[in-house]
């Protein structure tokens, strides 16, 4: 179990680095989670993160990369450069939602 301190709150991450309780997420938490992945968040990152959170809140499941690319209007190439080396997990980690269960 890993913990992350955001302001006065302590958030719990599972052993793969995903937020245990997606409701604990905040924008400050996203910045810290991104930093731990070596990513400095820009407006384009936020577009992806906000879409992923909304998708999760609406569907109760994390979006796959293809759903993010189509839904957020961010091309595959850009998605892989915004979240290098494994965007599927990185987007979910930073957005504070569970590991995506879909394949494509």
């Amino acid at each position, binding site marked *: 179990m890993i913990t992350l301190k955001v302001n006065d709150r302590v958030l719990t991450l599972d052993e793969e680095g995903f937020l245990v309780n997606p409701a604990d997420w905040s924008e400050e938490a996203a910045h810290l989670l991104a930093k731990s992945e070596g990513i400095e968040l820009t407006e384009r990152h936020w577009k992806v993160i906000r879409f992923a959170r909304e998708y999760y809140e609406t569907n109760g499941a994390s979006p796959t990369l*293809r759903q993010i690319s189509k839904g957020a209007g961010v091309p595959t*190439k850009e998605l*892989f450069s915004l979240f290098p080396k*494994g965007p*599927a*997990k990185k987007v979910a980690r930073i957005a504070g939602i569970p590991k995506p269960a879909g394949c*494509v």
Partner: protein
Amino acid sequence: MAAENRHMAFICSKGNLDMAYPALIMGWAALGNGVDVTIFFTFWGLDIINKKYMGKLKLPPVGIAGMRTGMMGFPVDFGIPQIVGVLPGMTEVATAIMRKKIAELDVPPVPEFIEMLMDAGAKLYACKMTVDMMGLSQEDFPEGVEIVTAGDFIDLTDGAQIIFI
């Protein structure tokens, strides 16, 4: 992070519709998880990246025990006699059903999938011997596909996990 990234290499040797998707889906999943991906297309597998055929891959129904009526939406699930599979038009029927099933899962058609993989950083190679044997050239493949020899492929996948399909 480890200095050397995990690397998976897929060898696609078959060009039927159902033999194209395993490498595409696993390769995509690997890229999404930060794993380097190389795909080598050889023999019939070359159709998967042949611009003329990649969108027209077929699923001939003969010899596939899993081809049952249940997957076509019939309430009774029974095997389809092999003799039915050889009738003219059955390959088109089976192909159409499989395409529909794939699209229902929001999995893209092969040409779009290949483009997605390259956009995501996968390296795609065509087998030189097959290219020569079939009288093909660079123009027959999407931009970004490289024609390499078997020896090149061995060098390019040093240390990779190899999956033969």
